[in-house]
Structures are given as C-alpha cells and as structure tokens.
C-alpha cells in the first residue's frame, strides 16, 4: 500500500502494451532479457476454481473492496476456442459496478494456446502491471482442473473457489489441489450443503500438508449477498500475504522457470503446427533434431 504520489495511470499506454504482449510470439519474447527484480512489485492474488463457481463475482467484489487501498488491476482469463482461436470474454459482466473507478483497471484475456488455466504470455503481462505501478493484481484463471498448479507459481496467494455439494471434495483430493490453495472459499453459501462442504474440506485440508509448510489454509463461506463474508475473505488474503512476506522468497526463480517452460513449449508447438504432413513421414530422431534446430534463434542455428 504505497502512499507516495505518482503519475496517474495511463490506461491507453497500458492497454496498448498489454495487446502487444498478448500478441508477441515466443521467439520474440525469448530474446527479451530477463528482467531485474523490480523496485515496485504488485501483490498477486490468484482466484481459481471450477466453471460457474463464482470466481468472477468474487473478483468483482474483492476488487471493489480493495481498490480503495491502492491501484488495482484485474486480469481475467477466459477460454479461447480451439477451433477458431476466438473467445467470448464475459467476466466483466459480473464486475459491472466497478466501471469509472480511476484506481481500477480490468483486462479480459483469451487463454489462446495455453491450456493450464492461464493465458499466453501471462508472466510478461504480470510483470508489466508492476511497471505501471499497480499495488495489487487479481488474476482470475479459466475454470479448468489443472489451473491451481500453474497459478500457484505466478501469484503470492491462491484462493480456491468451491461450490457447495458439487462433489468437489473428491475432485480436489484427486487433483492434489488441496496442497495448492492458501485459502478455500465455499461460495454461494446460501445453497444447501455449504456448511457440510466446508467441514469436509476442513477435514481433508488438515490431512493434506500445505505446500508451503507453516500456513494453515482457512476455509471460508461466502455469498455475494453477504458483504461481511467478502470482507472476511479479503482479510484472510491480507493475513496470507503478510505471512507470505515473512517466508523465504523463492517466487522469482519459480516464475522465471514457468515462463521459460511455456516459451519452449509454444516454440515447439508453433513449429509442429507449421509443418506439412510429409514432415512427419521421416525418421523421428532426425526430425526432432530438425525441430530443435529450427527453434534456435537464426544466429545460433547449425543448418539454415
């Protein structure tokens, strides 16, 4: 919560820079130097959970509450159609009362070729939010099963949103996400089954060891109709951020690794997508060598 005066947010510049980053191809990004640790880094909060669990609604309420304390960005990812590459980005529909707040910037992102709940070039976009002086960024993932793992590496605090009575407990145990979340929220808590769901999660969460050791994830009930429940969630986020700040900081290395992994995957995927069928008729070992060579930058290539 930095209180120092700074230039007002240039929404046009940010908007253009985000578009440029979203469209940048992996080869271009791979050539960018790794950034220095920033002087000013936004707190990053990830909101994840199944489709329809209430992520956008919760993000909207949290943003309204937390934008009063500083410059707040929301990056909301929705799935891109694998068929057309297009997307309907509708998360804003649930964040309607937020328009006009000078401190708040919301950007909708298509997941594009990224299948892990995040979006292409998201690490770079998060870094850009630091450069534009944001105090906090809320990152809303696509509602897919594996999003917890990817978002874990990109944010300081992971909030997992669950639906009452959805059989989510077993799903959660299967996917190993109990170890990923810092805060559990059973949303739409006015629906039957919410207290029982919370009790189940509590029992399982105490058995599953939290990945970061000492933190005991709180299990909260929330409802869009009960402002006090949103307030409680916001306070839990603050407590986790404060705890996190006391821990040894391994995020920078973790985030750099994720970025590189994604760039390599996309570089290879791009090469494969561009080949004719006949490319795949040749022997494997040779074609792998050709593929790897083609993914090098031109000056490092063995064969051109």
């Amino acid at each position, binding site marked *: 919560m930095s209180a120092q005066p700074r230039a007002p947010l240039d*929404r*046009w510049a940010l*908007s*253009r820079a*985000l*578009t440029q980053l979203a*469209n940048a*191809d*992996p080869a271009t990004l791979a050539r960018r130097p790794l950034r220095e640790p920033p002087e000013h880094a936004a707190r990053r909060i990830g909101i994840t959970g199944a489709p329809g669990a209430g992520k956008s609604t919760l993000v909207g309420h949290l943003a309204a509450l937390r934008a009063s304390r500083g410059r707040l960005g929301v990056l909301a990812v929705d799935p*891109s*159609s694998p*068929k*057309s*590459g*297009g*997307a*309907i*980005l*509708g998360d*804003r*529909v*649930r964040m*309607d009362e937020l*328009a*006009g707040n000078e401190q708040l*910037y*919301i*950007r*909708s992102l*298509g997941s*594009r*070729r990224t299948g892990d709940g995040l979006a*292409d070039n998201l690490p770079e976009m998060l870094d850009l939010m630091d450069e534009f002086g944001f105090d906090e960024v809320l990152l809303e993932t696509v509602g897919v099963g594996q999003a917890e793992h990817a978002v874990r590496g990109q944010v300081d605090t992971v909030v997992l949103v669950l639906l009452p009575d959805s059989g989510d407990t077993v799903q959660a145990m299967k996917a190993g996400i109990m170890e990923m979340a810092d805060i559990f929220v059973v949303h739409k808590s006015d629906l039957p089954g919410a207290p029982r769901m919370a009790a189940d999660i509590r029992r399982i969460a105490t058995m599953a060891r939290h990945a970061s050791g000492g933190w005991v994830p709180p299990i909260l009930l929330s409802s869009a109709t009960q402002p006090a429940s949103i307030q409680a969630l916001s306070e839990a986020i603050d407590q986790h951020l404060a705890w996190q700040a006391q821990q040894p900081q391994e995020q920078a290395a973790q985030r750099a690794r994720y970025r590189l992994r994604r760039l390599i995957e*996309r570089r290879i995927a*791009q090469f494969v997508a561009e080949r004719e069928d006949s490319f795949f008729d040749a022997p494997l070992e040779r074609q792998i060598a050709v593929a790897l060579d083609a993914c090098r930058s031109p000056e490092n290539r063995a064969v051109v």
Partner: protein
Amino acid sequence: MSTQHATAVLGGRRILIGKPGLDGHDIGAKIIALTLRNAGAEVIYTGLRRSPQQIAQVAVDEGVDAVGLSILSGSHKELVADVIAQLRTLKAHDLKVFVGGTIPVEDRAHLHELGVSAVFTADMPLEQVVKTLAELLA
C-alpha cells in the same frame, strides 16, 4: 499471429459488444458475439444496461479494435451519439463503431453521419456481418 486459423478472418481482433440503455434483451448481442468468436475474434461482452461512458472506458481498457452496440429500445440516435462522444473524450476516435438491433431504414444515414461504420439488421445473414467487419478492420 500465432492464434490465427485459416478460417478465422477476424483472428487476432478484439471487439466489444455493448448494450447501452435500458432494453433488457441481449439474445441478438449474444448471437453476434458467438458469430464473431467463431470467426476468430476475442469478443468482450459488457452485459446489459451499460452507460455510454462505461462502454467507452471498457473499450479503451480492453484495447479493442471495434465497438458493436446492440440497441432495441428505439433510443439508438441518442445512445450512439453519446457513445461516440465518450470515445472521443477518451481519445479513442480511431475505433470502428457498428450498430445492430431495431434500427429503422430511415435512421441509418443519420447514424453514419455520427461516425458509425456499419449498421446491421436482424435480416442480414451472419456471414455478411463477419465479412463486413473483416473488411472494416482489414
């Protein structure tokens, strides 16, 4: 661009679909949103009953190439003029604006004068909508 597909004539484009004013029907807006998505665009939908000021701000924040306004209330002349004025205030005059809904034929010329690039009517084939927008944004 890496997300481009052979059939995706609107690949890489970002388009806002907005519902200004008080009418409460958005099935038309949703059909257009889906059609544009299937043509490869990333479509940002605002939801119902947004003010012209909200729509213009969202257009800037989301970095869209075009703004589509769906209006069934009969107030299209006022609402379109308002949205375009707000876009100008935010220095977003280079964004293309298109309009759909219940727009009488005799009002179309007026909307074009206000700065609207295309007016779509309910009887227009969806392929035609996509084609017009692809040309507009080429």
